[in-house]
Every structure is written in structure tokens, then in C-alpha cells.
């Protein structure tokens, strides 16, 4: 196996998975560089889980290819040993207690950190003796988070890891992920629809809708591509004429509009016109791109970033 060009963790080309007439993943082509945190974002049933299962060789592609660290993942022990994919609905053997998961997992992961795992168990207020079957939804999610973090697998995939987790536990997850990631860089894929909550973590966004990759861009680039302009209705209307407006909010005589494509010159022009230019939340942007458009004047992503 030769090293992948540019140290790619993932490379998908025309990756497609059909279940009968439904294309759960439809012609997905993208790359993920190593040592980044990528958000796999999309609505329920958009194809997130199927895509992650394709990446880890758990699902067989109908057509197209996916390469993991330069090689096909299906039944490939050499690359799968570098992966950890805890499903959102991960089942554990009936008689497993937390300590059994912590005892069984390390043999699979070369970089497993037992102290880190023990620390996380404490922080999520769990005890090793608890039976997994008796845990709540959120506590079971916490087990997945603990295994995913402590595995330090070169490709760690979290499939909606926060399900049932309370706000404090979610914050612990985000904090620990970020801290541990900076100390032990690795490729992390996080599927979620709590976009704003994780947007600070994400370096790259991969948005999937109805099986198709609709956005594949660095989060910074996405954020800077659009902006909110607000001011008096008249001034805003004048500014947005002829521009792609993703969203508008009228409040009395004030109008706030989300403009899809805003480069530096546009921003300067808006300020000169006495308008306030603000950031757009990643969530808002993605909602607009995945079926939530409220105005007819929409734009395709390609146009927006062109």
C-alpha cells in the first residue's frame, strides 16, 4: 500500500448505495484530509449513517469506490484496524457491564488510552459496574463517546453521538474531543444535526441531502461566503436587489437579510451603504441548502461560492 496522495484519510468517487429504488447515497465524490474534524451534516434519512457505514466497510457500495487511508475498506483488516465507528444505536452483549466494554475494546485499538477512558467514565458520572442494558439512552450514548475518544483511532466516527445526552454531557464531549484532538491529531467524522452546537469544533463540513453531497467545504469558507445585512428596510432592499437572498426577516421598519454570496468588496459596499454586516450561523446556511429555503430567490452552492 502506498501512502495516499496529500495524506487523505478518505477518498470517495461516485460512491453510491441503493436499497431497492432508494439511493441512500447517490454518486458521492469527496475527499477528507487526514487529521481534520469533519461534520457530516444532513437531515434525518439524508444518508449520513449509510455513508459512514460505506466508509467503514460495513455496507457494500452499489457502485463507485471509497478509499480509506489509500485502500478499499471492505474486509480490509489493514485499514479497518485504524477505524472506530460506534453506531448511534450500538448494541452491546446483554451481560456486558461498562467495565466489560472497557476491557474488550483495547485489544482492537493500538492507541487505546485506559486512563483517559476511566477519566471519561467519571466525568459522565458512570461507574464501571453498571450494566449497559440498564443504562438510559443518554448514558449509552456516553459509552459510545468514551470508546470513540479513548480509542484514539486514526479514523474515529461518531454517529449522532449526543442522542439523549444532557447539555452538560454534550459540553464535556465537545471539550474533551477538542482537547484530545489537539494533543493526538486524528481524523474525526461527526454526524449530527445539532449544527450550531458543534460548529466551533468543525473544520470541514460535508452536507448530504437525499443521498447527494450538497456541500463539501471548509467551515471557514462557508461562513465567509455568506453574511447577514441589516438596516432600514429601504437601505437593505436597495442593497440586496439583484443578489441571492437566502433568508429575510422583517422587524418593524428594519430588515435583516441573509445574502448568499458576499465577498470583501460586497461587505465594504454594504457598510458604506450604512448597513450592518454580520456572520451567518452554519446551521442557518445549511438549513437553507437542504430544503429550508424561505424565499424563491435561492442559489445553488456552486453559484454561491463561485
Amino acid at each position, binding site marked *: 500500500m502506498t501512502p495516499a496522495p496529500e495524506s487523505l484519510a478518505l477518498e470517495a468517487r461516485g460512491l453510491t448505495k441503493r436499497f431497492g429504488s432508494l439511493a441512500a447515497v447517490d454518486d458521492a465524490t469527496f475527499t477528507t484530509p487526514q487529521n481534520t474534524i469533519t461534520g457530516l451534516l444532513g437531515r434525518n434519512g439524508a444518508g449520513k449513517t449509510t455513508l459512514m457505514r460505506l466508509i467503514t466497510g460495513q455496507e457494500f457500495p452499489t457502485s463507485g469506490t471509497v478509499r480509506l487511508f489509500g485502500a478499499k475498506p471492505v474486509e480490509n483488516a489493514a485499514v479497518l484496524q485504524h477505524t472506530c465507528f*460506534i*453506531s448511534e444505536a450500538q448494541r452491546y452483549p446483554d451481560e456486558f457491564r461498562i467495565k466489560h466494554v472497557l476491557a474488550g475494546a483495547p485489544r482492537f485499538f493500538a492507541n487505546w488510552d485506559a486512563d483517559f477512558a476511566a477519566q471519561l467514565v467519571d466525568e459522565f458520572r458512570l461507574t464501571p459496574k453498571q450494566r449497559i442494558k440498564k443504562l438510559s439512552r443518554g448514558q449509552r450514548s456516553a459509552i459510545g463517546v468514551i470508546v470513540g475518544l479513548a480509542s484514539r483511532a486514526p479514523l474515529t466516527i461518531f454517529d449522532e453521538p449526543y442522542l439523549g445526552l444532557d447539555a452538560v454531557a454534550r459540553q464535556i464531549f465537545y471539550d474533551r474531543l477538542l482537547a484530545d484532538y489537539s494533543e493526538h491529531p486524528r481524523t474525526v467524522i461527526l454526524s449530527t444535526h445539532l449544527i450550531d452546537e458543534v460548529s466551533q469544533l468543525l473544520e470541514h463540513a460535508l452536507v448530504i441531502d437525499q443521498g447527494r453531497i450538497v456541500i463539501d467545504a471548509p467551515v471557514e469558507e462557508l461562513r465567509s461566503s455568506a453574511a447577514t445585512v441589516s438596516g432600514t428596510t429601504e437601505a437593505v432592499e436597495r442593497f440586496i436587489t439583484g443578489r441571492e437572498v437566502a433568508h429575510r426577516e422583517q422587524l418593524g421598519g428594519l430588515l435583516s437579510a441573509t445574502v448568499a454570496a458576499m465577498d470583501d468588496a460586497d461587505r465594504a459596499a454594504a457598510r458604506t451603504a450604512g448597513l450592518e454586516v454580520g456572520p451567518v450561523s452554519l446551521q442557518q446556511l445549511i438549513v437553507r441548502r437542504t430544503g429550508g429555503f424561505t424565499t424563491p430567490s435561492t442559489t445553488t452552492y456552486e453559484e454561491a461560492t463561485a
Partner: protein
Amino acid sequence: MTAFTADSLPTTARPLGRRISTIMLLQLTNPMTLIGWPLMILGFIYVLNLAIYSLISTATEGATAVGVNGGVGFIWVYTLVMAVQSVNQTFPLALGFGATRRDYLLGTGALFTLLSAGYAALIATLAMAERAVDYWGIGLRFFDSSPDFSWFELFLGTFLLLLLFASVGGATAAVYVRWKASGMYVFWAGLVVLLVAVGFLLTWTESWGAVGEFFATAGVLGTLAWSLVISAIAASAAYLILRKATPTNT
């Protein structure tokens, strides 16, 4: 700290033996499931039988029961249950932990072969112990199903039987893991149709006598040796079915 680049990531898999033992140890992580509980239940059944046989022996003033007790058959059936549960419950987890289906199947096959051998050795040894104490003088032939057999014959017979139950259990679980409930309907319906067809065929061709003769000629060990064919078919089926299975955690 350690940065993973394509160059620094090991590009060869861990040795096969290591991968197989990892799968075996995952299923033994809680030793109660495959070793603790079955031994405790077997012990419980034994003690219960001991009490009942003592009672009968006392009541009948020393007249001993004759024939095999059959309680040891629990471990045969329980081996099937263990194989079903183990495959159903650990396959999705092992794949999430980055194991390949092939490694999982090899590891599980090795584990159940070892477990079968271990249980067979234990039962053959306990049968010898029963003989040594003359079935406690109350005719409790619990482990010693065939008093004519040597330790090795008892071990071999039990081992073959346990292999059969384990592989049939593994194949059944494989059908469930891959096709879920609909797979089970087809599987059981198919099995019933197959058995009826075989019965019909034997009756039609008036071959029942030949079948009886086959078992009589083959003897217990010979018949069990032939069961290896069924075990091999079931184990291969489990392998082929799971090679294409996509675990769904439901």
C-alpha cells in the same frame, strides 16, 4: 504528540493470530456468559438430580434407577443458545471496533471449537469420576452417557455433538443477523419443507430400514462422526452468510 500521517500509519494488519484472539477474548470479556453460567446451571441441575436420586434410593430402599439420566443434554442445547447469542450480540460490536467479518468468523469458530473441546473434556472427566464412585451407589448416571466408552470416546462423542450444536446455532444466528425476521421465516419454513421432503422421500422409496441400518452399523461414534458433515455445512453457511452481512444494531 503522535500525528497520524499516511506514512506513519501501520499499513499491514496485525498478525492473524492476534486478530483471532482479540475476537475470542471480546466474547469472553464477561466470562459468565460462555463459561460461568453454563457451568453453574449444569452444577445446579446435577445437585438437583443428586437430591432426587437420593430420595428415590431412600424411598425404594436401595433400588437404583437404571439408564442414562440425560441431564447433561442441557449443555448440548445451551451450546446452541450460546452460539446464537454470541454471534447475534458481538458481530455488530466487533465490526464497529474495526474487525473484518472474516476475522470475526475465524475467531468465533476457534472460540466455539475450543469451548466444545473444553466442555467435552470436562464431561468425559466427570463421567470417569462418576464411574469411580459407582454413580454414588444410587445409579445417578448424569455425565456418563455411555458406560462402555473410554474417556477419549466420551470426549470425542461429546465434542462432535457440541460442534454440531454450535455450528447449527451459528448458522441460525447468521441468517438472523443478515436477514432479520424475514430471514427467520424463510429459514424455518425451508427447514420444515426440507425435513418433510426427506421423510416423504424415505417413505416413498421405502428406505427407512436402510436408515435404521445405517445408524446401527455406524454406531454412536460413527453417527456422530457423520454429524461433522452437517457441522461443516452449517459452519460454512454461517461464514458465507456473514461475509455479506451488514449489521444494523436493531
